[in-house]
């Protein structure tokens, strides 16, 4: 039987294997080679087909035992508890296991009911676990199927305690890289954690974005917000290049811009959080930039006078291109081992992180054959 399965799996393409792995929800599937995938699938099929033949069907996930009014909660419970995330099964602000379990869209009615009942609490930054779940489901489509994100070095993300994920910023239309960074840690890390990405005030100003962005777990790039996230032991996602990395010409693709005042190093010194540099490729080609315009930036500043945008990128395609993405998590930097912690050290460490990311980007670009 095993050899027959083996032969069957051997005849499939890698994409088909990944699709199978997704159906089986195997962890780490996006970064596996073809051989690893078929080995993992074989193992899965051997262990999973056993109970089916012995009588009862696959065990249904436990349902949360919490009751509001006359209605039971109905959402799947965490694995080691009889409660779902909304009702105290696990810490929703840190763990990114979806409240609804890894089930898919069939849990949306239960989620929608929770949303209407509004009995659960949101944290001071405004994370709404139900909205975050719905957004997570949609991001997973981009993550697994559209951008087919490949992840390397995910073991460098700490499984508990605070950490600062520092990544290069890319793109022009929408900040997909923030979403993909959070999705990578939620989907592929051994402990799926929630990354609280912080962004500029433009996200607070745009209608609809302003609250959906907050509710899905992001925050504003202010010192108070970042300190709160780290002091509560969560993961913080930052893009120190800011808008300078976001709106740049195609000729500067994957050239990391200045890292500002190195605020993230300051935060690490204060809170003792580890710094994990992340190199992301793929983001620059999703919306290839035709040219950058200072005129347009002026217009944007007229509408949003608080923006410090100098150049505005004009991109080619309204629909994002299905580029193949790759994320590389570099070894964590423990700031307690750094010799100096003065003002100059902040700039030094910030520059060191920038060049680490730049080197990793150069390596990854050299290895890449095609952008798709």
């Amino acid at each position: 039987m095993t050899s027959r399965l083996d032969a069957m799996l051997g005849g499939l393409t890698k994409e088909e294997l990944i699709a199978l792995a997704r159906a089986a929800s195997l962890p780490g599937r996006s970064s596996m080679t073809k051989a690893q995938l078929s080995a993992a699938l074989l193992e899965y099929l051997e262990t999973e087909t056993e109970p089916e033949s012995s009588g009862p069907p696959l065990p249904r996930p436990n349902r949360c035992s919490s009751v509001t009014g006359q209605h039971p909660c109905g959402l799947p419970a965490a694995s080691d508890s009889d409660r779902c995330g909304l009702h105290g099964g696990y810490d929703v602000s840190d763990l990114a296991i979806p409240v609804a379990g890894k089930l898919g869209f069939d849990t949306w009615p239960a989620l929608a009911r929770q949303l209407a009942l509004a009995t659960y609490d949101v944290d001071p930054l405004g994370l709404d676990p139900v909205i975050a779940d719905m957004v997570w489901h949609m991001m997973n489509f981009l993550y697994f199927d559209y951008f087919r994100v490949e992840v390397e070095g995910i073991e460098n993300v700490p499984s508990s305690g605070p950490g600062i994920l520092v990544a290069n910023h890319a793109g022009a239309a929408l900040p997909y890289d923030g979403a993909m960074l959070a999705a990578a840690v939620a989907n592929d890390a051994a402990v799926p954690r929630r990354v609280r990405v912080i962004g500029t005030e433009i996200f607070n100003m745009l209608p609809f974005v302003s609250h959906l962005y907050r509710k899905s777990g992001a925050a504003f790039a202010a010192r108070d917000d970042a300190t709160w996230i780290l002091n509560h032991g969560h993961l913080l996602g930052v893009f120190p290049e800011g808008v300078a990395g976001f709106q740049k010409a195609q000729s500067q693709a994957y050239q990391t811009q200045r890292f500002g005042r190195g605020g993230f190093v300051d935060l690490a010194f204060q809170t003792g959080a580890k710094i994990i540099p992340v190199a992301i490729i793929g983001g620059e080609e999703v919306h290839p930039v035709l040219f950058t315009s200072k005129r347009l930036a002026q217009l944007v500043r007229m509408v949003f006078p608080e923006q410090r945008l100098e150049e505005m990128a004009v991109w080619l395609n309204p629909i994002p291109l299905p580029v193949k993405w790759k994320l590389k998590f570099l070894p964590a930097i423990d700031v307690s081992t750094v010799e100096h912690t003065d003002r100059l050290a902040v700039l030094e460490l910030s520059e060191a992180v920038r060049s680490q990311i730049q080197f990793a980007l150069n390596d990854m670009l050299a290895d890449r054959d095609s952008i798709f």
Partner: protein
Amino acid sequence: MLSGRGQLPTLTPVERVLVTGAASWIGGRVVQELEPHHEVIAVDEFEPRMAFAARLHRYSMDSLDFAQFVIDRQPTTVIHLQTLDRSAELGATRSRDGAVLGAQALFGAIERAGSVRQVIVKSDTAVYSTGPRHASILSESTRISGRATRYERNLRDIERFVADLKPSMPDVTFTVLRLGPIFGQTVANPISRYLSLPVVPTLMGFDGRIQLLYEDDAVDAIIFASQTSPVDGIFNIAGDGILYLSRLIRIGRRIPQPLPSPQLRQARRLLATAGIALPEHTANLFKYGRYAATARMTAELGFTPARTTRQAAERTLRSRT
């Protein structure tokens, strides 16, 4: 009224307490709580909203007569509550004069009188103002900046008077209480009335994070600060937790009606003619939201509101339907 909650320590010896803004809801409640135990001097220029036994001295606070009155009466404790937003009744300029010049006269009189040992000033978390560039979590040490409405500027001015006066009066404790939005049925302030409407017009595409302080807790906080051993400093006072405006309305079983900005302005103007005016700073709060960290309130002041934000909302909005 307070005894049931068991939060207050035994009352300190009889003090001569000056309460400004006694005609307002919160002023009336504070006078009611204090008058059985203390000699209360109630001051305001309007008809009182709440009945109390103490005589109400009608003074316009920005007058020198009032300052002379304070000096003559030699109070030992001053509870300054006339920092409310009265622009709806009085117009912007008169409201500003009452709040800022009134505070100036009062603090000048406190300095001259020499009898005062404790000053409690009611401020508002609106002093931080709100906008897209504000941190999501504001603490007492956060630098206050950003564009502000007139009411918010008044509060900033009043707090600056306190900061200026402090160094010259080292043996007086100044307690500034930044109260969160007070919410309740009896207070009937603009935010409570607006959210009690059956259909609540909101701004489309925005959903602010709202922190509430239940009306009884607001009174308790002021009484608590005046009755325990005086603590110097600025404190954010608000119920635990936050609610998004949309959920706040849903908790109250009201219907939210998101409107684009021009239509919302018209709706607000229409409601204002019906006596339910939503002030500018509250409209901004609904748009961008605000959360003031209350760690210092529990740690240093030792006060904890009896109700969380959610409980304040449930109690206020569900009892009427």
